């Protein structure tokens, strides 16, 4: 105790805010990384990341690469959140949220107090109501989802070259899994309940060509077929009575948000924790990110929107940018299936019959024989939708135009085909006098003049014009010129 009070000119500085993150997956770990990059010394935010999986955070997007045998499970590990004011607790799960006390109970009996709670609990595989399938927590023998490393290990243990496998679900994950299994030699069938593959990302024509591409790889595709029954050791029976032989069944039929904790605590949920543009739930101290969240702008199911949400929430909780808002997903779907280049973005079905300058216009190219299909939708001079199957070059360019909201070039067909616009006329005449030796700026007219002045050998040309004296790359061209002019033919003599 001092006898004199300290000169209290400043109010006491509050300690770091306690932020508890439930979920140590791709989005939870990213959120921790984003917070630490904004608050590296832990002065503003103390983070505790809680992960049920004892493996630590790993890259779920790459599970098909493990199935394909191109990566080992341990190679999926994500960078560990680290730095002052960061704690990671793996192998423990939250059991309840006490919003009144701002406290989370964990299954090891301990509790965590929070100032802000971030739910990044992700989603679990959705199991359609099919006889004999089991559920995500207790799948029937031979059945697995492909959501986590445990699923991945189960699947690789069940499949070998030649194993018949059925993938239930013809969406992105199902097709990536199918291609990965097929690449390892499994005999794969895909069953999709919707009228066509990737129903949300493709139109019917694109899906038809995509199905043919898969068929050509040896994958049987059964769209608009509902599974009726799983018979372990036999296979999957379809609604038309057909039986698809299978030793293993991969369920890739969508996901269900893990929002039970929030719901039990009285937080508003509707197929996910309902959040606003601040990623905040009906409780202002509770936030949600990624697959467990439901934002009116969508985005669940893909990792990129979850990462964008993580950056926005990190801006808010660290105070780095109090104006940060999440404005909804700008989803770009890029199928990762070896040998198949498929991108889908923006609106898939467009009504371009409406007149007007700002009306949507589409360019469509369909080449079933070549397995290519392109549909580009442009509204007000900007890309608003695209389906690109087999256009790897233009897909990269179109995706960036879409992400940037940048104006598209005049030559829209050229953009779609990935071919540069025709050279403008002004670039033409210069070629009439082509640059032969770049190193020394020597044009063909100069070499012709040298020849007229008597240069008959490569050495003569080099001496008078310096052509060929840089990197030597044009020696071939100069020799060809001399040969064409008949140099070296003694009958022609030497000019004087």
């Amino acid at each position, binding site marked *: 105790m001092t006898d004199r009070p300290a000169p209290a000119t400043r109010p006491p500085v509050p300690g770091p805010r306690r932020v508890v993150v439930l979920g140590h997956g791709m989005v939870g770990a990213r959120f921790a990384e984003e917070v630490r990059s904004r608050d590296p010394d832990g002065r503003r935010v103390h983070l505790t990341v809680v992960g049920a999986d004892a493996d630590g955070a790993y890259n779920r997007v790459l599970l098909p690469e493990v199935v394909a045998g191109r990566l080992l499970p341990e190679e999926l590990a994500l*960078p560990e959140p680290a730095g002052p004011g960061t704690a990671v607790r793996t192998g423990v799960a939250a059991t309840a949220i006490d919003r009144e006390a701002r406290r989370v109970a964990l299954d090891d009996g301990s509790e965590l107090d929070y100032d802000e709670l971030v739910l990044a609990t992700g989603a679990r595989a959705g199991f359609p109501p099919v006889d004999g399938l089991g559920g995500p927590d207790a799948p029937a023998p031979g059945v697995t989802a492909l959501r986590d490393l445990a699923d991945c290990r189960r699947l690789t243990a069940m499949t070998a070259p030649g194993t018949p496998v059925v993938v239930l679900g013809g969406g992105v994950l199902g097709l990536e899994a199918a291609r990965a299994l097929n690449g390892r030699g499994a005999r794969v069938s895909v069953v999709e309940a919707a009228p066509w593959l990737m129903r949300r990302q493709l139109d019917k024509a694109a899906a038809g060509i995509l199905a043919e591409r898969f068929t050509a790889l040896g994958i049987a595709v059964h769209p608009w077929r509902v599974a009726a029954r799983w018979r372990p050791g036999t296979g999957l029976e379809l609604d038309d009575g057909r039986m698809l032989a299978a030793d293993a069944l991969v369920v890739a039929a969508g996901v269900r948000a893990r929002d039970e904790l929030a719901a039990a605590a009285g937080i508003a949920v509707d197929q996910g924790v309902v959040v606003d543009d601040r990623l905040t739930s009906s409780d202002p101290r509770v936030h949600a990110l990624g697959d467990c969240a439901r934002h009116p702008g969508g985005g669940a199911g893909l990792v990129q929107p979850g990462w964008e949400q993580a950056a926005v929430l990190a801006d808010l909780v660290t105070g780095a940018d109090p104006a940060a808002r999440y404005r909804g997903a700008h989803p770009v779907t890029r199928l990762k299936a070896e040998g198949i280049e498929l991108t889908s973005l923006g609106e898939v079905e467009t009504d371009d019959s409406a007149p007007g300058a700002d009306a949507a216009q589409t360019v469509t190219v369909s080449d079933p024989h070549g397995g290519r299909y392109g549909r580009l939708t442009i509204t007000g001079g900007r890309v608003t939708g695209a389906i690109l199957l087999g256009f790897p070059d233009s897909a990269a360019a179109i995706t960036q135009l879409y992400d940037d909201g940048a104006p598209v070039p005049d030559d829209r067909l050229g953009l779609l085909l990935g071919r540069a616009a025709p050279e*403008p006329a002004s670039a033409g005449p210069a070629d009439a006098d082509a640059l032969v030796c770049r190193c020394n*700026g020597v044009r063909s007219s100069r070499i012709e003049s040298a020849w007229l002045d008597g240069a008959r050998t490569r050495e003569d040309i080099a001496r008078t014009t310096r052509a060929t004296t840089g990197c030597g790359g044009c020696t071939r061209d100069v020799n060809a010129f001399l040969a064409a002019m008949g140099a070296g033919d003694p009958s022609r003599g030497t000019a004087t």
Partner: protein
Amino acid sequence: MTATATHCPYCALQCAMTLTASGGEVTVAPREFPTNRGGLCQKGWTSASLLTTPDRLTTPTLRTGRTGPRHPVGWDTALDHVAGRLAGIRARYGADAVAVFGSGGLTNEKSYLLGKFARVALGTSQIDYNGRFCMSSAAAAGNRAFGIDRGLPFPVTDLDDADVVLLAGANVAETMPPLLGHLGGARLIVVDPRESATVEFARRNGGLHLAPRPGTDLALALALLHLAVTGGAVDRDYLAARTDGFAEAWRHAAGWWPERAERVTGVPAADMRAAAELLAGGPKTYVLTGRGVEQHAKGTDTVSAWINLALALGLPGRRGSGYGCLTGQGNGQGGREHGQKADQLPGYRSIADPAAREHVAGVWGVPAEELPGPGRSAFELLDALGGPGGPRALLVFGSNIAVSAPDLGRVADRLAALDLLVVADFVESETAALADVVLPVAQWAEEDGTLTNLEGRVLSRRRAVPPPPGVRTDLDVLHGLAVRLGQPAERFPAEPAAVFAELRAASAGGPADYAGVDPDRLAAGEALHWPCPADGPAGTPRLFLDRFAHADGRARFAPVEHRAPAEATDDDYPLIATTGRVLQHYQSGAQTRRIAELAEEVPEPFVEVHPDTAARCGLADGALTRVVSRRGGTTARVRYRPGLRADTVFLPFHFAGQGAANRLTNPALDPTSRMPEFKVSAVRLERVT
């Protein structure tokens, strides 16, 4: 008539040439040498014109106020004035009130003596050089990975047998054309947002072009590492035997699957796969970086990402493969080894290392505790001039910062805030034009000296002609100033040979050890690559064959992550400007703009624009446009380039005044190397009415 065997004044390839002086005329002839093999580019061929440039400075000029014209004075008057002012400023504000700015164009002897002059005669920590704007990111990443920084750790001629060469941000067809003579047998993978001359060269030989959006090379390098792993191309035995840190680096690269990198870079994932296959195939594979990937606020991490890729493939430290950086300036290598960098002492020693300070102080005959510590980096130094706590006087040698520094408007303000600006140059450069004192010095072929080329080989540059009457050498100027500042005359010799002998002693035992570089053997044409210690006088053409230079002999992966450029485009500044070079000009253009043949070929600033982008801005091919960034604007003539990314424009930075590209550039600095972000500026194009 005398013939002198020497080297070109310009880039780090240091092409060999013979200068023949006859009756006041000097002619250039290429000379056989391993790097250029008897080739020269247009700059080399025309270099002798510099010796007779009509506006050559031959008399010191001086003004006593900060404005108005300078008047011709004698050398003693000029040096007395400068020394007197420096001493006065130092007495009033302290030693760090005087700053020195050097150059990667200076010889080894000048670089060395300049650093010594700053630390000993001026006692200032405030010295840095334009190599900070050039080599610093590659240097930092090289040191981090290998424990040493030599641009190419192998002779250029090793590239002759390459199967695959990845050129990341290097446009050698324009910047060092004779190097292409070593690349004709390889499949090239060129990483460049532009369809450069090097890309055209690569295409003719079945090469690949990857055109990332400027500022996204790091994501591309991470994706190529990702593909090396998923494609099974990683050399696991090599990783175990020779490297550390792969697992941590991989955790970051794991997050950059090619389809994700495609969205960020705009490079098709299919092209990344094709590149990864080429790289894995090799087996004689090289990864080389240039300024395109280095001149960023994340340049060090970007180079680290390319080195990580090279290490994962097992390339460095093996004959017939490797990683290297293509050094830019003529003595960009030697210039970064001998103590003109803010944190460095001769022999590539750290100024913060007590043992290094002891050693160098011993050679210099001063107490180690009197040596200042590390000073500000180049842009931070320029930005502090005339400000609170910043230097009040600046001495500039061999650099034209009024054209080559980033954010020129800001730099001009800082230069104007100085009490004293002194420039040593041989022509009235744009920086000299702002100076209070201009000291006319000898150039390239008028004095002897050594340089160290891009492969770490020490070369002799020879005097071919005497300097014009009235002109002194930089060494002479430093000698004269040092003596006037109270230093013993013998401590600052003006003879290059004497300085080189001292440099050898000062570098002995350091990473860049020149102790065994015998001038007679150099003169005889021996190929001496550093390190060349006194007891190993054969030099080291190839580094790392047995071990890397870290104490444990192992190379280190750096766990790097991609991050966005320092500034983003928006509706007001929707395009990305990137800067670079053309074949006909060198650096700030102070030399090449004075050579008629080069100036005729490329006479004025231009901006390359995709025709669609130009059309939207209402700009015809050949029209003048104003390119405007958040920092300033520059005027340039539009050149349509259909092969350019539509979101990117390109400007050469060789021009001055209203056409200076660096009026646009962003001085956001790399946290490690302090390299400014020259390669990414958000801009718009305006019509000039």
